[in-house]
């Protein structure tokens, strides 16, 4: 069975050390596996010859494109969502958005904006994977879902090397996660519930700034543990605070992100500290980066009226749909396997991963290649600096997003 080197695009870590056994369509990770890559490859490996559909019925690509052109020509306020696509796919999405005057937003836009909002109001001091891996003598972990969202983070970033690291877990972790932490690390577990994150982060700010506070028991954490944590933070030579914005799922979670950013900035007054927000899954950073460099403003954005505009509330996909401000949805998704939100009565064209079956038939569904599986593609890694090329793993399979959209653009004229 042929073994192929692979780069995995199913979370923002973009591990490039995988070996995958390719047996016809079937795919099996034999090195560098994790729960996310195994699940995705199993699903994609089970699909044989996906075909486009019009109103649920199999059709040729040619007919599907013609039907899509009809939908888009009739639309006056189209919206393009999903956007878990590679760089080439996003370049084509934006060319199309300009052509049809669409609003564009990533499926995870509101999650991403928890971090982006703080960047735009405050800024930040951040670091990257290799810096954290080689230099960090203290890592503070916020939230409880990063381990499932970024399954090999511990193995690839936290655990290697002989660096003596202190680890602080701010949030309660399930026992399985705790077991994965480096065995020789000196761990301080605060174990606060997620609802306690805003209070705990604020108190840590007060403590490292040496404000006159007397920590009481806060979100289940003892005053002694809070003091100890602040002491550890101040004693670090190179500290890193890690979180995944998806874990911070409560109203105004950006205030917690801002408290973290402030903590990092304060600590940098005397020692070195940096934030490492884990992101990049479902190509959220890729989509936003291409949009930002091509147009000068981030997502979500509108290309209506022959100009581009950014507004995190006005152009958020769910808000646009909720307010009835769209009259056609184009959903473009090649990595996550996510289906579009239900849009009853609205014309809907769906480009999806080959294995996706829709509950309700869209007007048009076109299967597209997943980057790193059926097509080569570039994705931006979760630390926002490195872009990797994901080579193609197997022959055949559906066309790339950029191929489909470029054909569509040619037909739109």
């Amino acid at each position: 069975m042929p073994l192929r080197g692979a780069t995995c695009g199913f979370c923002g870590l973009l591990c490039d050390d995988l070996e995958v056994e390719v047996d016809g369509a079937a795919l099996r990770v034999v090195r560098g596996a994790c729960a996310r890559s195994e699940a995705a490859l199993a699903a994609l490996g089970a699909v044989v010859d996906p075909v486009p559909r019009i109103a649920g019925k199999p059709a040729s690509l040619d007919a599907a494109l013609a039907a899509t052109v009809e939908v888009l020509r009739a639309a006056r306020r189209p919206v393009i969502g999903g956007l878990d696509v590679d760089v080439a796919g996003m370049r084509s999405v934006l060319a199309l958005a300009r052509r049809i005057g669409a609003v564009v937003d990533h499926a995870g836009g509101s999650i991403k904006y928890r971090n982006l909002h703080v960047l735009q109001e405050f800024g930040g001091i951040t670091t990257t994977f290799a810096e954290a891996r080689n230099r960090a003598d203290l890592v503070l972990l916020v939230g409880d879902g990063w381990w499932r969202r970024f399954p090999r983070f511990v193995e690839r970033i936290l655990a290697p090397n002989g660096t003596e690291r202190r680890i602080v877990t701010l949030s309660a972790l399930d026992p399985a996660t705790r077991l994965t932490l480096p065995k020789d690390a000196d761990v301080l577990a605060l174990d606060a519930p997620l609802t306690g994150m805003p209070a705990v982060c604020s108190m840590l700010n007060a403590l490292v700034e040496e404000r006159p506070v007397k920590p009481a028991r806060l979100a289940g954490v003892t005053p002694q543990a809070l003091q100890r944590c602040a002491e550890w933070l101040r004693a670090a030579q190179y500290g890193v605070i890690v979180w995944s914005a998806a874990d911070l799922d409560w109203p105004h979670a950006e205030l917690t992100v801002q408290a973290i950013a402030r903590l990092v900035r304060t600590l940098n007054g005397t020692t070195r500290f940096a934030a490492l927000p884990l992101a990049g899954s479902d190509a959220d950073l890729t989509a936003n980066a291409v949009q930002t460099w091509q147009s000068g403003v981030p997502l979500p954005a509108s290309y209506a009226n022959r100009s581009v505009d950014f507004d995190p509330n006005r152009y958020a996909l769910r808000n646009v749909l909720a307010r009835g401000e769209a009259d056609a949805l184009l959903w473009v998704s090649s990595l996550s396997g996510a289906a579009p939100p239900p849009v009853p009565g609205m014309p809907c064209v769906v480009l999806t991963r080959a294995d996706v079956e829709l509950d309700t038939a869209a007007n048009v569904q076109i299967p597209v290649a997943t980057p790193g599986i059926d097509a080569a593609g570039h994705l931006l890694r979760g630390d926002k600096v490195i872009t990797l090329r994901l080579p193609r793993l197997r022959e055949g399979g559906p066309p790339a997003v950029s191929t489909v959209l470029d054909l569509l653009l040619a037909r739109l004229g």
Partner: protein
Amino acid sequence: MLTRLSGARIVDPAHGTQQDVRDLYVRDGRMVDRPRDGERIDRTWDAAGTIVMAGAIDLHTHIGGGKVNIARGLLPELGRQHSLAATDVCGACTIGPAPSTLATGYRYAAMGYTACFEPAMLPVNARQAHMEMGDTPIVDKGAYAMLGNDDFLLRLLADGANRAEIRDYVAWTLHATQAIGIKVVNAGGISAFKFNQRSLDVDEAHVHYGITPRTILRELARAVHDLGVPHPLHVHSSNLGVPGNVDSTLATIDAAEGLPIHLTHLQFHSYGTEGDRKFSSAAARIAEKVNASPNVSVDVGQILFGQTVTASGDSMLQCRNSRHGRPPKWVVMDIECDAGCGVVPFRYRDRDFVNALQWAIGLELFLMIRDPWRVFLTTDHPNGGPFTSYPHLIKLLMDRSFRNGVLASINPEAAAMSALGSLEREYSLHEIAIMTRAAPARILGLEDQGHLGPGAAANIVVYEPHPDPEVMFATPRWVFKDGELVAERGEVKTVICGAIHTVKPDFDRGIERKLKGWFEQHHTQSLSSFKIDDEEVCECGRAPRLAVHACRARTA
């Protein structure tokens, strides 16, 4: 296809000082000296009464790579204030201090620029830099890879590696990142900042590696020279923006030990500590040294008043200078055992003492450095101001009475401390053509750019003479790129994709064995993921052509 441009006055310093009126001929995108016998002229452009120069070249402009994109994301309000509507050929985008890549290409081309060079490409960020440059339409592009703060090189130097090994690593980096030159930013300082060192002078030791910036500068300048890379080591000196940094700038020149170096955004490195405020111009001392050092070339990094954003690899100094930023939000990053970056918005004000003096210092440098072949017109876009202000800057250089009028309106204390008012020099058109065309082409090794002789790329800019040089340079009548009309009177007519310029010096690939081990031990990607081959860079960079320029190795 043969095209004639007739009746223009030709300013082409690469071929002498004469500015005669003659016809130019273009065949298939290249300059030719005359038609073949009996050859039909397909089209004639009547350029009578105009002034023609080759396409301009910006050798230091931050057009690609993560930090400009961070600046865009940090300051969406600037983008929203400067929206550019779509036209029949241009896509909707935004301009302003951190312009979109689309607007960057459109505006550069409309101003008569046909090649732009990104000066600070982090090797680990090279793919994104090439992608952003690929989405910068019309102009040709190239980039300098940043070295001198990467742990691999610092480890080599600390271990006393031999010069051949350093040379091989430098060459390998040029190949792997598809670069045309090497830049060093605050030699060793970005790395030292990761170990909580907050400043690093030229002869101060890096707290972890124990080596000094002087060693790094000397060894990199030597490697670039020995490999025969045309562009000398591109140096962002130590102590950017720090009063009194004139001493470290002079020490940086000495560190090259006579080998060619290019000092970039020199204005930010020409500060003294005289006066009540302990901030003064040291332009005269610097200019004297540059005039006496034929191995040194510079670009100025002029500041211009208004809102901009500074984006630099120099995390150490950007963190230190962040308290001066407006609006008060900023980003600093440590990057991947490779480098760093810092993005700090700035609002330069003409009534502010420091800003006003910075403005004057830049102009003093332009006017005191005598040889226009060794001083280049830059604002370090966007750090001193956006590139769109170049026509204004040219007017400041060409028109003394205009310059003195502005001088009279700035902070009077700063004006009084500057020698600017006494400097009578006015740049000629010929000198402007040198510093924006002929000289950058020569120092980058671009044989077919920056001139209008036979064999050159047909990058031609047709200006209508005007008493106000700012008007003349802002909107040329026609801009031709590779023979094609791309802009007319400030309006983009055709959107094409430019080439990528690189160098590929010979080297011993044995260095990869050591690098492979280093990557496996320290990095979070493999060596093979890191490298960008020719096919990939053209795909990322949407380049129709990879222009590989010759290197003439200077060692056995």
